[in-house]
């Protein structure tokens, strides 16, 4: 820095270091850009399959893990959330209320997927909001990478009986009726 006077300009080793770090940063951002350019799942495309291991205490039809393709024939609501995400708190109670409406009939499955979160914090969040629908961690962000979500949490994907994505909700739900409207449309199809 300017505090030390340098008569001769920048020494060679420093120059090499500077150029290397700038190039490194650019490579990093460039690779991120290439990844971001990959096509995103969109409404109408087949929902990529994944398996999800549920948190302790959660089951679906008695099993502690599930595969999305096994749920074909049902309407699936996949909600990506994180315990550090404020809007997720806002919608947590709403999602749970909607789940309780549909759970008895067994036609609709809600899945919560905790994204880039720690297990204790995820569990505390689920307990705090009394969430009963199946929830599991997105280990290694494998699921979110399939869906190439890059708009942040919360994000919710509505999958029709035929296994295609019918609606993508970016951001939190404000009311149960909003979720109901979306699901009822899919059930009617």
């Amino acid at each position, binding site marked *: *820095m*300017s*505090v030390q*006077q*340098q*008569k*001769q*300009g*920048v020494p060679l080793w420093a*120059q090499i270091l*500077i*150029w290397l770090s*700038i190039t490194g*940063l*650019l490579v*990093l*951002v*460039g*690779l*991120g*850009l290439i*990844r*971001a*350019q990959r096509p*995103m799942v969109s409404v109408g495309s087949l929902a990529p399959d994944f398996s999800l291991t549920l948190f302790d205490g959660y089951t679906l039809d008695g099993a502690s893990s599930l595969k999305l393709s096994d749920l074909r024939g049902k309407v699936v609501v996949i909600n990506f959330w*994180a315990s*550090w*995400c*404020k*809007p997720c*708190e*806002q919608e947590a*109670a*709403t999602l749970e*209320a909607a789940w309780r409406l549909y759970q008895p009939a067994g036609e609709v499955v809600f899945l919560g997927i905790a994204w*880039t979160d720690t297990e204790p914090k995820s569990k505390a969040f689920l307990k705090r909001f009394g969430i009963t629908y199946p929830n599991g961690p997105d280990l*290694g*962000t*494998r699921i*979110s*990478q399939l869906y190439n*979500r*890059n*708009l*942040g949490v919360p994000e919710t994907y509505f999958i029709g009986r035929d296994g295609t994505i019918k609606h993508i909700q970016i*951001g939190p*739900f*404000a*009311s*149960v*009726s*909003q979720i109901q*409207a979306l699901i009822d449309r899919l059930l009617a199809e």
Partner: protein
Amino acid sequence: MLAELGFGVLVLTFFLTLYSFTAALYGEWKRSEAVVESARRAMLLTWPLLTLSALALIYLLVNNAYQVSFVYEVTSRSMPAYLKATALWGGQAGSLVFWAWLMSAFTSLVALRKWERDRELLPWVLVVAAFTLAFFLSLIVFFENPFLRYWQTAGGNVLRAVFQPANTLPFIPSDGRGLNPLLRHPGMVIHPPMLYLGFVSFVIPYAFAMAALITNRSDDRWIRLTRRWTLWAWLFLSLGLVLGGRWAYDVLGWGGYWAWDPVEIAAFMPWLTGTAFLHSVMIQEKRGMFKQWNMLLIILTYALVIFGTFLTRSGVLSSVHAFAQSAIGPMFFGFIALTSFFSVGLLIYRWGSLKADVEIKSLFSREALFLFNNLLFMSVLVVCFWGVLFPLLSELFTNQKVTVGPPFYERATAPLFAALMLLMGAAPLSAWGTASARTIGRALWKPALAALFVTAVLFFTYTRHPIALIGFFLIALVLFVTFYEFWRAARARTKAHAENILLAFWNLFGRNRRRYGGYVIHISMMLMAVGILGIELFQRETQGTLALQQSLVLGGYRLEYRDIARFPGPDSREVTRAVVDVYQGERYLGQLYPRIDYYPEAQQNMTIPGQRPTLRDDLYVLLVDWKPASSSGATFKVYVNPLVNWLWLGSLIFLAGILIAAWPERERSAEQ
């Protein structure tokens, strides 16, 4: 018709900018005064032309020209006219036009300066600015054209093109898709333009810095020329950040104002380097030091501005602010690579000639404290930069996208901000050149004692939270020091000029705007810090479903659910509004009206809180859900956000401070 005109003008402007760039470069090389002059005049034409193009687009927006795809994407018939007009920056293409328009306005202002005095620098400023403008215009013309229209082929396919393709008919949707309801807020009118203004105006000091490097001028002329620019740029950027916070606080429905979202950080990073720059240029002006450092800071600021724009628009990072993915990502990437290699290379080339005139003599001198201040700002920047790049890094090495959340930023930056506050307390009391621990200690012990007293009072009356107490101590210290500085200077004036104390205060601002404006900004920052401490450490919340006449209690307030009604609102909304009585103990305080607005065409709800702001706290009530049958009640979420209104009060004072500092003063009068 208007679409063709708008597009034609854009293309013309693009070529003019290219011409201006080439001519300025060529004219400098051949030392031809006439060619440089023609470059200058070409640049002067860009602003009226872009104004025409932007007006054409606004006209299309306001008049529901849904054949134009941009208009279709961001407006709908039910939106009020002011929102239709401001939807200009509600989508990628339009916001680029707006950006280019601002950029050409600033560059034209530079071109209108008296050239004789800075004949050496100005052509190069023009070269750099014209290059940046040409880049943005090329994005619009080739990738994100807002004037594309829909055309239908005989087969029923809909195409997008500016000019009518053969065998097609115009396709005109009957209504537009409409703006995202979150953006339908008066904040939309003012928050994005402020941020863009801030971003764009930092290009000018950068262009001057580059010109100084190219012409090998190692004096501080470029800094003196851009000093006020930089202040205005900083004003706009700061306002953009604060307004964004206020908008989020009102709209997002959880009382949050800052979420450490990557895009917020992207706007915050140039603010950090810009703030460091504003401080360190004073050292170059007064002492001839930090020349290389200042160059580095302005290059960083510019690079971060472009980088921030890139992040928002390329889909590289997750964010609520993201624009839809688009093809301009790679273009931006190339531009960033080019400008950073060029500027850093130039700086390295000229490094030796930017030596300091003097050296730092004492660790407690004002220049040393300013250096610490800069290092702290840089440390905050490193934390932010790391947090933003971390997902990319982790994806590269582990194939997992791991994001760092607000706790990371809060823990990493809080001590740095505390240290900055300590410096804010100490630096105004230190002297240029030589100062020792003893002289600073002598000046500081009285305000420190007073601040300690305040902290003790707070300990017994308000809170025992250790972090809050440390925070309040630092805030009190800075406030006491700053008031003491004002008082000392004003009293000196009353003696020297026989003025009364109020007049003396007033004249202080006239005498050294930057210094005393700066102190006002320090005061406002401390008020904002009070608000941030309050909401971060003491926010309380509860949630409950209430039947009519039932109550919810939180933080000394009691809320009683009185009524609910549903009615159509403006902008084709369906409004559901609850009425809640607020009591404190048994005292009736008034009513709040939290509501839910439903936008049918976007199928989206907006939750609008009922707020009761006081300086003690902000009562913030949300209607979360309700059932049509009144018996089953409504669900409310209630927050009590202590002290948060100091944040908004502080931002008003901040505005006053920066206006004092940036207000034009008579040339040379305040140099001393």
